């Protein structure tokens, strides 16, 4: 029984049935996570709930099912995670952190509820202003990088979190963009990649964060695209999947971290797209829904969204266009930023 839905299936019909995108099961899988059907699993994932909601919602949007999660409850839940300092925790009662603040803003942007933030949000100045203040307070004004929270851990991932959220709020002016850009540039390694801090090992996830930050800042001109493209293209293994660093096992989530980085620097064609798409589809559970890190492993919503987003980059039929920097539907970014990509 074919489970593919949506227009333009031309490419898909060439694939055997088990390598078609099983949309309805994926939608049902994501919906089931929200239903607290499995109470135990709900508690075990509480400390990343807001990330999980962002992952699930993004996947649903990319599968053209934006209404599959209840909008009002989503907004209410997100706002319940906000602290008086303007930042968001993973769930009510959990400490604020840039990782969850970024997801909160991305979710509200996707369901078009940034006004609700203005009306109902907490913190000094209220609404977007309070969130902007929280994020700005986490920038290291000397070096330009960002701490994740008051405890000071610095990581290039947090630069992207900060700029991603601030740009969606139209508040990039509250931080020192030049310093942030300089810091990212200082993280460029001789091998073309980027790491967690200057001189750190190149890593696909950190590369995505650094390139994404430069993209938001409009400074992709500062990237050595050929060198980085070369490093990223070497992530593709024989079986078609991508790994995160030399000699590591492939993991389907790297379809996103590597794929989007290549897309942002205009070199996605430097990997074998069809082979990657085939690998991604082998990681799905076509009956129960969801994607796993590798074929046959247990599925989870993290690998689900990055698989679907990866397929979107590869223009797989049945998947909406994703913005390679934000990992959100391109249509949402256009609406929020009021421009084309």
């Amino acid at each position: 029984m074919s489970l593919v839905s949506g227009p333009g299936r031309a490419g898909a019909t060439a694939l055997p049935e088990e390598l078609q995108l099983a949309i309805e099961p994926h939608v049902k899988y994501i919906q089931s996570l929200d239903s607290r059907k499995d109470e135990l699993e709900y508690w075990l994932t509480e400390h990343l709930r807001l990330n999980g909601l962002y992952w699930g919602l993004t996947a649903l949007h990319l599968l053209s099912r934006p209404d599959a999660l209840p909008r009002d409850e989503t907004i209410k839940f997100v706002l319940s995670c906000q602290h008086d300092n303007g930042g968001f925790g993973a769930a009510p009662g959990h400490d604020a952190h840039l990782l969850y603040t970024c997801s909160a803003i991305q979710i509200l942007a996707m369901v078009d509820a940034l006004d609700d933030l203005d009306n109902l949000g907490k913190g000094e100045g209220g609404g977007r202003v309070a969130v902007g203040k929280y994020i700005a307070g986490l920038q290291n004004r000397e070096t330009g990088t960002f701490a994740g929270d008051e405890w000071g851990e610095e990581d290039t991932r947090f630069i992207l979190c900060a700029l991603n959220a601030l740009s969606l709020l139209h508040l990039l002016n509250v931080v020192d963009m030049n310093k942030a850009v300089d810091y990212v540039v200082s993280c460029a390694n001789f091998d073309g990649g980027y790491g967690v801090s200057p001189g750190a090992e190149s890593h696909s996830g950190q590369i995505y964060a650094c390139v994404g930050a430069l993209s938001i800042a409009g400074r992709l001109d500062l990237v050595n695209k050929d060198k980085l493209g070369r490093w990223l293209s070497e992530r593709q293994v024989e079986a078609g999947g991508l790994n995160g660093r030399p000699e590591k096992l492939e993991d389907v989530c790297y379809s996103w971290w590597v794929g989007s980085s290549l897309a942002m620097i205009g070199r996605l064609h430097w990997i074998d797209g069809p082979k990657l798409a085939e690998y991604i589809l082998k990681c799905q559970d076509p009956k129960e829904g969801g994607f796993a890190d590798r074929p046959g492993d247990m599925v989870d919503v993290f690998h689900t969204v990055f698989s679907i987003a990866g397929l979107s980059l590869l223009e797989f039929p049945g998947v909406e266009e994703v913005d390679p920097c934000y990992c959100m539907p391109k249509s949402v970014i256009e609406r929020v930023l009021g421009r084309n990509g």
Partner: protein
Amino acid sequence: MSRALDKEIVASLQNDDPTSIYEDISSALCQDREELLEIEFLGKSHPLPPGTNFLLDENSIAIPKVKLVQAFVVARQIFFNLVDDCPEDKLHVLRNSATVILLMDPEHITAANSRKRLLLRAGAPSPEMLKAMLRKELLFVDSFLTARLHRHTKSPTLWGHRRWILEKCQTVGMGYDIQQDLHTIILVAAERHPRNYYAWSHLRWVVQNLCVEDKTKSEISLFIKDWCLRNPSDISGFSFLLFCLAPFETPENVPRSEASTFVCEEVLGLAVSFKWTYESVWVFLRTIVATGLVANSQRSAFLEAINNLLATCQDEPKARSNLKNAMRWFEENQQTNVSLRVKDNDLASVQG
């Protein structure tokens, strides 16, 4: 990465009293110790007799995953009941619940942060008391970071927590022994979790921020070089070695190019002897040779080695691509830095 529970674990969660499981596990786990605790999980292939929630043998503890999950549910409740405004007499209860939570999931930042707050909250204890508390906290995080637990050894939250503790130790004037740290904690984590990104970035931070003398840095570089040669498929080790040799930090490039050439020669020599085609080895070699900080002889030795090895691995596509990528990358990226090129006969005194 998947936190999903398998159905068999879920199915076996009946009939047990979670509260007593929590009490049992937390008291074993949180006992006062002077040494690292070795922690392991037991899977369903190692069932324990009913009523037994862990195995403890001096400084080794093994906990069935099924029991830990149940203990976690209780820990979580206790934690969130106490975390806002915890009464003085319950501080240890809060701390213990955070320990169990972090054992279940090391990325639980609220639990990790609560431990920082508990340390800060201790009011103004005597310097000796604070140092003792910091030592205990370091022992806690180090036990998790060196455990045979896949996710804990590489956890950015736990490594970040360790950094915070070390910073506090510095501010109260506690000494820091990098060699001990390197051998008992950082490299242990690096070995138990190969290509351990956050362990190696922690080492970079330590070297750059905890007042490590140049002489010690050199010793460490040599030690890491030997470590890499014993772990040739570990890209993180080689990446750290490059960091040691890299010209980024100082303009004093001449000493560095002698070191680069020396290391390059040794790694290349072994790669040829053992016919290594590991991607990590060749990414390291192509990068260091391309930096322009090695003697000319190394450049030609590098290219010759690749050609010789290619002849020996005709049927190994991955090996061939590692070698060919190395050659191509080197050709595309080589730097020629005329003023700093080290002549071969200058090396005699270094290698002596």
